[in-house]
């Protein structure tokens, strides 16, 4: 008899399966990864790619590349309203009850002109209407029609000082522990033609669930950047004095400040 010349002997298959299982077991060491996750050095290493993402993606896409705009027929019938429940602050509720008659968008920080804008004043500014896709960090997306004032129109009127680097959006809504929602974007996104302060959704005044009276649309980033229930804008050189200092409510929870991916 000739010897067994088959390509894999039983012993080898068994050994391979055992060693493969060993490797899988290693991958299953979630305690190890949980420990690494708590390690400050590991965390900052992991976080270091955020800046690389921002530079690469902005470089590849180009500065004022417009997000795809869709047609009326593409509008989603259902658009999930995510995030905090509608604000319960008395001031907010009375504003909603009076159709925002006395409401003003506050302006603060490093600007020449810090007079606020009433809703009629905002509506009187040049408007932009866009049907765009909203991408949530949770994975879903939805398409809606938004109408609002381009943020650059507001910026032009408030005349930020040279030191200003970021626009911060302070909001009415809070989480269950009372932390106020806020967000910030840099001028790269703030001056983008599709970055608008929206007051209409699908041809109707912005509903409370979607951030009445005014919400941000940044079409180059994920949904969590698009602050709802905006109270006031603040122009700052650094964001480290606001909230927990990472530039946004979700960034304070460990999410990326740059949410372009």
């Amino acid at each position: 008899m000739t010897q067994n010349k088959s390509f894999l002997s039983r012993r080898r298959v068994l050994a391979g399966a055992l060693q493969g299982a060993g490797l899988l077991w290693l991958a299953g060491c979630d305690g190890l990864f949980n420990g690494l996750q708590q390690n400050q050095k590991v965390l900052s290493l992991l976080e270091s790619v955020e800046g690389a993402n921002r530079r690469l993606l902005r470089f590849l896409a180009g500065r004022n590349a417009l997000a795809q705009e869709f047609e009326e027929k593409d509008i989603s019938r259902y658009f999930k309203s995510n995030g905090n429940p509608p604000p319960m602050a008395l001031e907010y509720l009375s504003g909603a009850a009076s159709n925002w008659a006395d409401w003003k968008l506050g302006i603060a920080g490093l600007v020449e002109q810090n007079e606020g804008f009433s809703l009629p004043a905002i509506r009187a500014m040049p408007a932009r209407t866009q049907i765009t896709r909203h991408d949530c960090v949770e994975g879903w997306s939805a398409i809606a029609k938004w109408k609002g004032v381009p943020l650059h129109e507001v910026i032009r009127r408030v005349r930020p000082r040279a030191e200003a680097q970021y626009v911060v959006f302070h909001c009415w809504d809070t989480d269950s522990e009372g932390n106020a929602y806020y967000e910030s974007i840099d001028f790269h996104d703030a001056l983008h033609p599709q970055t608008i302060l929206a007051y209409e959704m699908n041809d109707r005044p912005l509903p409370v669930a979607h951030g009445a009276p005014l919400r941000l649309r940044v079409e180059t980033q994920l949904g969590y950047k698009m602050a709802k229930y905006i109270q006031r804008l603040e122009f700052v050189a650094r964001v480290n004095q606001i909230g927990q200092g990472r530039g946004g409510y979700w960034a304070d929870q460990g999410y990326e400040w740059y949410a372009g991916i």
Partner: protein
Amino acid sequence: LLGIENTEMGPFPRAFPSWATIPGYFWLAGGRRWHFFFAWVFVLNGLVYFFYSLAKGHLGKLFLRPRDWIKIPAMALYYLGLRRASPQQEEYNPLQKLAYSGVLFILVPLIVLSGLAMSPQMDAGFHWLPAMFGGRQSARTLHFVGTWLFALFTFGHVFMVVATGVVNNMRSMITGWYVEKHTPAAETVGTKVVVDEIAAAAEPVREASPAVAEAEPHIEAPGRETPEEKRAEEKNDAE
């Protein structure tokens, strides 16, 4: 829903069990950090591999050519144990080429592009990117399926490395040396001649040529090689 996580607030249903996720507890933000860090490692490593292999002519050996298709059934029969002698003629057999080419030229680009198609920033610059997958949500599905296929490939790849001799394979990946056990037909059971294949490394033919088979069995020590040989061996990287 494939798992339950025991948290301080009691059991918590999870789409994937804790052992399969990084971090083990439910934290999307943390998972994203790991994801994007290793996305960079994956892509940069892939680019280095691709261009180095291209420059060294290694990629050509892996590439599944039209003439390889016809050889696939014979090779599959051998793998299934239905055929005694290996029909392998080249350094990589047609099934290896199928797997490597499929992963390298189809699966990996699919994973990277479908991942980028989920980026609102990329989509602003390249409207065709999500469109080529039929929209962002299909890109998301394909990204997920692609990941599983890649994991399957990795599992199969590591299994074969281990099953066909982990020491020898690891040595050949790192140094380019591959020691082949060679059994002449008329030989008695148990006697094995170790033939160093490195002598033939300059040629893409893996099977021992008659000249080598007839030669005195010998094992070359890695220390004796000249730089010239070293370069030739690197081309023979069997990964």
